[in-house]
């Protein structure tokens, strides 16, 4: 067991990040993926907590995976730092998980809910979902930002709530597609099984591409300038 040895290629899982503002449904998306794919893939989950371990507890209580495959990382109330400027804690949590339960197919990493600019560093994940919800307002997708425009998949969640919050879901999806230059957008609701199936298909497809060596991690782009003076342009590959 040596931290400095990157996980051996045969035990290296697809590392899939799930980011997005507070309460949009990141944990729910992870729970859904686990429930539907756990028979086909060996899975692990890392949650990032701001000041509680609520996310890890929620996923454990949902019984979506054996408890020991869900681990929490404490981010010192700096969720964006933990997925971008200083990924060491998360990287080690992922590597430990891959080693302890070798060999895993997919490790899901939930970011602590942050703002629209928080995206995962390619040093931590191979691909990332960005989760918005209709309850946050129909305008959000149009506003863009690195997560919205650059994530591998943009999820617009809770579309069942559209009529209750006066959001035209079709319009929101169209705005998002425009902000993403045609990149994939998924309208999702746990109450619409067909949308859940599409989410699972996307994950299956991503895993297939990754396992076949055909996926090259892209960087959605750095965060907006903020108080952590740091050179975000520096990234490294970990395999």
């Amino acid at each position, binding site marked *: *067991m*040596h*931290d*400095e*040895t990157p996980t051996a290629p045969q035990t290296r899982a697809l590392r899939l990040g799930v980011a997005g503002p507070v309460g949009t449904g990141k944990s729910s998306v992870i729970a859904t993926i686990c429930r539907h794919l756990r028979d086909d893939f060996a899975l692990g989950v890392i949650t990032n907590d*701001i*000041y*509680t371990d609520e996310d890890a507890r929620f996923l454990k209580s949902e019984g979506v995976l054996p408890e020991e495959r869900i681990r929490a990382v*404490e*981010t*010192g*109330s*700096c969720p964006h*730092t*933990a997925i971008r*400027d*200083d*990924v*060491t*804690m998360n*990287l*080690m949590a992922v590597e430990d998980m891959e080693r302890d339960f070798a060999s895993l197919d997919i490790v899901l990493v939930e970011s602590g809910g942050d703002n629209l600019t928080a995206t995962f560093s390619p040093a931590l994940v191979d691909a990332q979902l960005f989760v918005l919800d209709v309850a946050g307002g129909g305008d959000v997708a149009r506003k863009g930002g690195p997560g919205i425009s650059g994530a591998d998949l943009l999820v617009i969640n809770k579309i069942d709530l559209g009529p209750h919050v006066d959001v035209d879901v079709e319009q929101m999806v169209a705005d998002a597609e425009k902000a993403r230059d045609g990149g994939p957008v998924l309208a999702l609701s746990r109450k619409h099984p067909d949308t859940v199936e599409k989410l699972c298909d996307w994950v299956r497809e991503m895993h297939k591409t990754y396992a076949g060596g055909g996926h090259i991690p892209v960087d959605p782009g750095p965060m907006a300038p903020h108080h*952590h*003076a*740091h050179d975000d342009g520096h990234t*490294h590959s*970990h395999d």
Partner: protein
Amino acid sequence: MERQAALLLLADGRLPAGGYAHSGGLEPAVTAGRVADMAGLEKFLIGRAETAGLIASAFAAAACARAAADDLSDLETLAVELDARTPSPELRKVSRDLGRQLRRAMSSIHPHPLFAALGDAPHQPIVMGVAAAVLGLGPRDAALAILHENNSGAAASAAKLMRVDPFDVHAILARMTTRLDALAGQAAVAAEGAPGDLPSPGAPLSDIAAEHHRRRDVRLFAS
């Protein structure tokens, strides 16, 4: 005085090794009402530097001297001695977690075979000492690096925990520079002796607070 830039690199709080998730015991001290204002913060930081800080810096200096001489035979003894000076199981774990993280970061930043020789979960001061040696720094540098990193990390967490004027916090850090220099010198001298003779000042309340903190449901910092 040749390797000053390497020392700045190692001591910089922005070195990506996960230190930002910790308050160095300040959060439990604030929560319990023991630190409530700037005077309290200054006393807290001085107390910490003179106890946990001196211990950490002495062990960093000792590890650095041994790594520089390419003799790691004492490392296991150093780890045992450091465990013995850290009564709180929680703080022993934090030290080893931070050590693993620092080792993981430094192995990517500046690879060296010595990092692999440190075992599964080395203490932070020991990794800091070895990292300093690998960067061509001496025992006193290693001591200063960990003193500064631990002190400025705890001070930075004050902005999230208390009503502070950040200028006041840095004024405390500025006043403490002479003290940290002196402590680093003390640590480097002590490092020349046997591991069992390294300094061992204690701060029992911090150990108890760390145990309480671990059991809290809601907290901003891991320690």
